[in-house]
């Protein structure tokens, strides 16, 4: 199996101890170890011979990072980072030690909370009540039922649900932003109108979630919010490990 290389989960501070019985990807789950290099360490395991984006392996990656991030700052690797051998890992760590240390410092005490906004599922009633154009189209369908009219109505409803969700979602994100240390836009996700991650102090993360839930309730006829977190700070390390890119809401 060694021929498959070394799977890298994260970079952490050198002094950080691994959680007990930490395991990683693969079946059976590979034991995880820490490779110290100067002031930082890479958390690694052997890479399984056939690594794919399986549910089990994705969860193993995520779970380990969650456990690590409860013990101090973590630079999470994207899923699937495999290096040819330990020497290559050490070379990398040594070459970028200062950058990694700075990035760990930046993330210290922080967690990621991800907020996704989707069009509200039960928004139809309030939409019809509030939107004159939709009401007109609906009346048209009632007067002269037909395929064309139905398509026009349905299209207008879909567009209106989406734009209401975007509008309400952006308002919520703006209200949440001051509570966060940094904000990063997430990748586009099918079905979501907004996807944004917040870097929040761990101590504030409950309050942050509570605030988000409160805003979600207040806007439930416009937007459905989905919260995930505290998470490892995936969105607050840039791909090359330098301190983060952040974006306005």
């Amino acid at each position: 199996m060694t021929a498959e290389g070394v799977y890298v989960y994260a970079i952490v501070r050198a002094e950080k101890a691994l959680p007990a019985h930490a395991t990683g990807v693969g079946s059976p789950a590979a034991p995880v170890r820490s490779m110290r290099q100067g002031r930082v360490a890479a958390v690694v395991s052997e890479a399984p011979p056939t690594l794919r984006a399986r549910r089990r392996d994705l969860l193993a990656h995520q779970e380990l990072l969650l456990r690590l991030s409860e013990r101090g700052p973590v630079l999470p690797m994207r899923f699937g980072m495999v290096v040819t051998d330990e020497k290559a890992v050490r070379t990398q760590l040594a070459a970028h030690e200062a950058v990694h240390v700075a990035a760990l410092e930046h993330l210290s005490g922080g967690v990621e909370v991800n907020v996704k906004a989707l069009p509200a599922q039960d928004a139809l009633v309030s939409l019809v009540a509030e939107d004159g154009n939709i009401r007109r189209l609906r009346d048209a369908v009632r007067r002269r039922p037909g395929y064309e009219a139905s398509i026009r109505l349905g299209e207008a409803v879909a567009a209106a649900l989406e734009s209401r969700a975007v509008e309400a979602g952006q308002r919520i994100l703006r209200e949440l932003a001051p509570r966060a240390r940094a904000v990063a836009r997430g990748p586009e996700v099918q079905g979501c109108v907004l996807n944004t991650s917040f870097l929040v102090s761990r101590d504030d993360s409950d309050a942050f979630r509570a605030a988000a839930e409160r805003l979600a309730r207040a806007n439930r006829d416009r937007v459905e919010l989905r919260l995930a977190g505290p998470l490892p700070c995936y969105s607050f390390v840039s791909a090359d490990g330098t301190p983060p890119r952040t974006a306005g809401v």
Partner: protein
Amino acid sequence: MPATTYSDEVVACPPRAGTLYDVLELILDRGMVIDVFVRVSLVGIEILKIDARIVVASVDTYLRFAEACNRLDLERDSGSTTIPELLGGGVAKSVGKRKVRRAAENVGDTVRKAVGGGDKDDSSEPSEASEDEETQQDRPRKRRAPARSGTSRRRRPVEA
């Protein structure tokens, strides 16, 4: 993964990470990439992202429904007709699904947290292997299907 992996400072209802599905794009699209780190089958992962989303989505959906059913059982009287139908008829079908789904929404994050935490039995090797194979065979078709579906279908690509 047992709940004991979480530190003691978080109590009764710990804020959890959501279901895997909710964070999949972060695991696959964010996080560090370092040049000397060769991403496993670079091309493969890009394609698999979409497949993984489908497989993970269906499992997560089932887990959510299961949790929602349990909730309903506790909160409503036993006369409710939809629950046995659902449990007997499989989640992928019909009328009751929307109700349960809505229930899942309403129960909200609590459910997601609970579901996200209890991942013990969802990765049994044989079924997962067959899922993988199936996904592979169906890839071209399945990949396109969700992309065409409406915005509100996000969590039901299985049906799409």
